[in-house]
C-alpha cells in the first residue's frame, strides 16, 4: 500500500517515512505544495498524510486543488496549528481526519489504518477473506487460525489483496501499490512475491488470470 507524505521538515519527513515503511507501507515523499500539486499518480495512492504548513503555501490549498481534480484517496491532515478553524476548514475541503503534531506514531498509524478501513467499509482492525486474517495494527497474520510470518513486502501484498477481494489486480497495479516512486520497479519481482505468498497462505487462494493479473478469493 503506497501513501504520499507531504511534509517540509526534512528530519520529521525522513523519520515518519522510515516508520511508515516499517509498518508495511510504501512511502513517497513530497516537500512542498508545488511538488504535491504536480504529483503524477494520485489515484494510485492508498492515502495521503498532509502537513498544512508548507513553505510555498497552505496544505489546505493543495487539498482544495486535489479535490477539485477529483482525487479521491483519503487524506489525513498532519498539522502543527492546533486551532479548530484549520481543522474544520480542512475537513470541509475533503480531508478525512487530522492529527496534531507532535503525535505518537502509534496514534498516527491507528488513524491512518482507520481511514483505510473506513474506505472499504471495515470497522475492526483486521481484514479477513476466506480464512486468511490480517490485523492491520498489530501486523499479525493467520491462515485458518494458524499464525503466519510474512516479510514486509509479502505483508503489503496480502494487505492489498485483502482490501480488494475477488478483484483482478494487474502486475502493474500491484507494483504501483507496493513500491514507492524511487524504488526500481520490476514486474518479475511481483511474480516472485506472489509465489512466496502462495507458499505461505496456500497456493489456491491466489489465482493467476493469464494476461490480466491475479485474483484473491472467489470472483
Amino acid at each position, binding site marked *: 500500500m503506497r501513501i504520499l507524505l507531504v511534509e517540509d*521538515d526534512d*528530519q*520529521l519527513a525522513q*523519520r*515518519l517515512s522510515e*516508520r511508515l515503511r516499517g509498518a508495511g507501507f510504501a512511502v513517497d515523499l513530497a516537500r512542498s505544495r508545488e511538488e504535491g500539486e504536480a504529483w503524477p499518480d494520485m489515484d494510485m495512492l492508498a492515502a495521503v498524510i498532509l502537513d498544512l*504548513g508548507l513553505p510555498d503555501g497552505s496544505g489546505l490549498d493543495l487539498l482544495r486543488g486535489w479535490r477539485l481534480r477529483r482525487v479521491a484517496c483519503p487524506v489525513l491532515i498532519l498539522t*502543527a*496549528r*492546533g*486551532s*479548530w*478553524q484549520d*481543522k*474544520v*476548514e480542512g*475537513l*470541509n475541503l475533503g*480531508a*478525512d*481526519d487530522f492529527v*496534531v*503534531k*507532535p*503525535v*505518537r*506514531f502509534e*496514534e498516527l498509524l*491507528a*488513524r491512518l489504518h482507520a481511514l483505510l478501513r*473506513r474506505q472499504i467499509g471495515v*470497522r475492526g482492525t483486521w481484514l479477513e477473506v476466506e480464512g486468511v486474517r490480517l490485523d492491520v495494527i498489530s501486523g499479525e497474520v493467520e491462515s485458518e487460525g494458524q499464525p503466519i510470518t510474512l516479510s514486509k513486502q509479502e505483508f503489503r501484498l496480502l494487505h492489498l489483496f485483502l482490501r480488494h477481494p475477488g478483484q483482478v489486480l494487474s502486475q502493474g497495479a500491484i507494483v504501483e501499490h507496493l513500491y514507492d516512486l524511487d524504488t526500481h520497479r520490476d514486474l518479475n519481482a511481483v511474480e516472485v512475491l506472489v509465489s512466496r505468498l502462495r507458499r505461505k497462505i496456500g497456493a489456491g487462494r491466489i489465482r493467476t488470470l493469464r494476461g490480466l493479473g491475479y485474483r484473491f478469493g472467489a470472483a
Partner: protein
Amino acid sequence: MSRRYGVARRWGWNSLRLRLLLAILAWVVVGIGGIWVSATRLFAKHVELGFHEELEVHVQELAGLIRLKADGAPVLTRPLSDPRYLVPMSGFYWQVNVDGHPPLRSLSMRRGALDEQVAHSAQVLHRIDKGPSGPAITYGFVAKGPQGQDVHYMIATDERLLDATISDFTRDLTGWLGGLALTLLLIGGAVVLFAFEPLDRLAAAIGRLRQGDREALRGAMPLEIAPLADDLNAYIAHTAGVVERARVEAGNLAHSLRTPLAVIIDEAERLAREPGTQESAQVLLDQAQRMAQQIELRLARARAAVTGNLPGAICRIAPTLAPILSAMRRLHPGIAFVESAPVPADASLPIDPSDLTELLSIVLDNAGKWARTRVDVGVAAGRITIADDGPGMTGEERCRAGEAGLRFDPDRPGSGLGLAIARDIVAAYALDLTLSDRQDGQLGLCVTVAAAEEPR
C-alpha cells in the same frame, strides 16, 4: 440597526439630541416670552398715553365750545368733533357744571353723572372714577366764567375701551408669537435631526462593530467628528490587525515548537525500543507530552485572552455552526449529528467567531467521540445545547471535567485538554458552560453553552 440604537435610545434622557432640543425649547420660550411681555407692556403704555392725550384735547375742545348765557347757564355752541359723544352710552361722555345751574351733559350720557371733584383745579387732572357705564378715565379742570363763577369741565371715557384695545392686541400678539415659537421649534428639531445624522451613522457603525462586523466606517463625516470617525476606523483596523497578528504569531509559535517536538518524540520512541535506553526514553516521552499539552493549553488561553478582551464581539450561531457540523459528520462518520430544529437566523452569542468555532468544535468532537449513534444539537436565543447518547458522566466526573490533561478514557484519541480549553474560552467571555444529564431522561451527556445571566 438594532433596537438598542433605535428611536427611544436616540431621544433618551441622556441623549445630546434631547439636551439640544430642550435648550432650543428654553431659548424659544424665554425669547418669545420676553418679546410678549415687552410688547404688551409697551403697547399698553402707548395706548394709555394716546387715550390720555386724546381726552386732554377733548376737554380743551369742550371748554372752547361752551358758552355761558347771560344767566350763567352753560350751552354747547356746536357738537364736539368726535361723534362718539353723541351715541348713547357709547362710553364717551362729557359734563359741564356751573354753580346754580343744572349740569350740561353730552347726548351719550343718558344716565349717571360725572363727579365734579375731578375738576377742582385750573390744571387738567384725571383719575379713574365711577362713570355712567362702569369705571371711567375722567379728565377735568375748572375755569372762571365772565361773572367770576366756577365752570367745571369734565370728560370721561370708559376704562373698558382701553382694556379691550389692549387685550385685543395681546390676543393677536399671543397668536402670532405662538406661531413663531412653534415654527422656531420645528426648525430647531429639523436642525437637530440634520446635525446629528452623522452621529447616527457613527452610532450605527459602532452598533455593527458590537455585532461583530468590524468593517471600517464609510462616507463623508463633518469636520467636527471626522477625527473621531478616523480614530474609530484606525481602532477597528488596529484591533483586527492585533487579533490577526496574535493568531498568526500563536500559530507560528505552535508550528515552530511542535515540529521539533514531533522529532524529539520520534527519537524518544526509537530509544524506547532499544533495551538500554528505555527508561530515559520514557522520561523524554513524558516530558515532551507535557510540553505539547502546555503549548496547546497556553496558546489557546492566549488566543481567548486576546479576543475575549475586545469590546462587543457578537457571533451569529447559524453560519458558524453549519461548517462545524459538516466537519464533524466527516470526522465521525458513524455518528448522526442532528439539529433538533432549524437554527434561528438571529441567534447569537457574545463571542468572537473563531473562538465560537473552537468552543463548539471541542464540545461537538467530544460528543462525537463518546456518542453511540447520535449527537443532538439545539439552538435557541443565546443558548446552544449539545447532547450525545454516550455513557454520560457521573456527578464527580462532571465536576472534574475540564481539568487540564484529564482523560476519562485513555484509549480514545485526544489530549485531555479540550474541555479545559473550552472552559478557558467561556471564562474569557460572558458565557457559561454547563454539563448535565440529558433532559429527556436518556443516557448521555448534555453540554450547554449560554450567555451568562449577568454581564461580567
